[in-house]
């Protein structure tokens, strides 16, 4: 089973990297870009568990390890089973 987990800074936390990317895009003339938030992607392969178990396990590892809940939020999706 392939899972994709997205981790990014919470809205309440300033993201200077995202801002720098946005400014660079503006310099190139892409003024339609209103905001950029930068994050991380984890592609994880799981084995030996069903969908219901995976749906329990994924947020657990995201919360415990992949994201720091003080500053980051995460979302996830099961890509293929």
């Amino acid at each position, binding site marked *: 089973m392939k899972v994709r987990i997205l981790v990014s800074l919470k809205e309440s936390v300033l993201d200077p990297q995202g801002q720098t990317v946005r400014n660079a895009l503006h310099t190139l003339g892409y003024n339609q870009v209103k905001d950029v938030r930068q994050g991380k992607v984890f592609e994880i392969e799981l084995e030996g568990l069903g969908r219901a178990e995976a749906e329990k396990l994924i947020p657990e590892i995201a919360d415990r390890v992949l994201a720091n809940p003080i*500053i980051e939020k995460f979302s996830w999706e099961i890509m293929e089973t």
Partner: protein
Amino acid sequence: MKFGVVVFPGSNCDYDTFHVLQNVMGQETVFLWHKEHDLQRVDCVVLPGGFSYGDYLRSGAIARFSPIMREVKKFAESGGLVLGICNGFQILLEAGLLPGAMLRNKNLKFLCQHVHIRIENNRTAFSQAGYKGQVLKIPIAHFDGNYYAPPDLLSELEKNKQIIFRYCDEKGKLSEEANVNGSAHSIAGLINRDGNVLGMMPHPERASEKILGSEDGQVIFRSMINYLEKKMGSGKKKAVRLVKPPVSPLPPLIGTF
């Protein structure tokens, strides 16, 4: 007093810290390998600076799962003195031994420079050899030192006087400019509620000898030694050994990554 310096794969201030504790401060010092489960009965644990596990995932995020960290956590929870310097501070945050988190520096640059920090609270085990308002010149070297905590936590830290050091100018004045990495409330060092765990971004071990341009870092080590000697009941002896001991060679590291 016996100090333990924890060595993670990627620690790079371990020898500097060991050298200062043993050869400058005259204390018995041992290395504690990250795979060990035994703290060798040390009186104080120091998590040194560096780039444990290459700063992968987040600074300090992987090191907190090292076997030795379980012992460090137990040690801290039972009142043991723990000092985290730079990456050590980041590990303490990730391990939940100190509150808050680190963000990338506000200017997105790795900062390697001397800074000034002001002692905000000298009634702690880590700052009692200094005085309130004292300005220390100590270097920093980090990418992720922009301390973040939600507003309610920040007011709690202020209320409990848990902020021990703030970035300031050479006269001790706070400013946005002096707060080089953009930390909330100019926080450079912070203590836990019980007062036995300190994390600080500046490197006191790099500022403990005249030849290195500043001896101000000794204030932190001397405070800890004073505190421990008093706690152990040997307070009647001369509090600090001021005579410089002979420099003994540093032990080689044993262990595989």
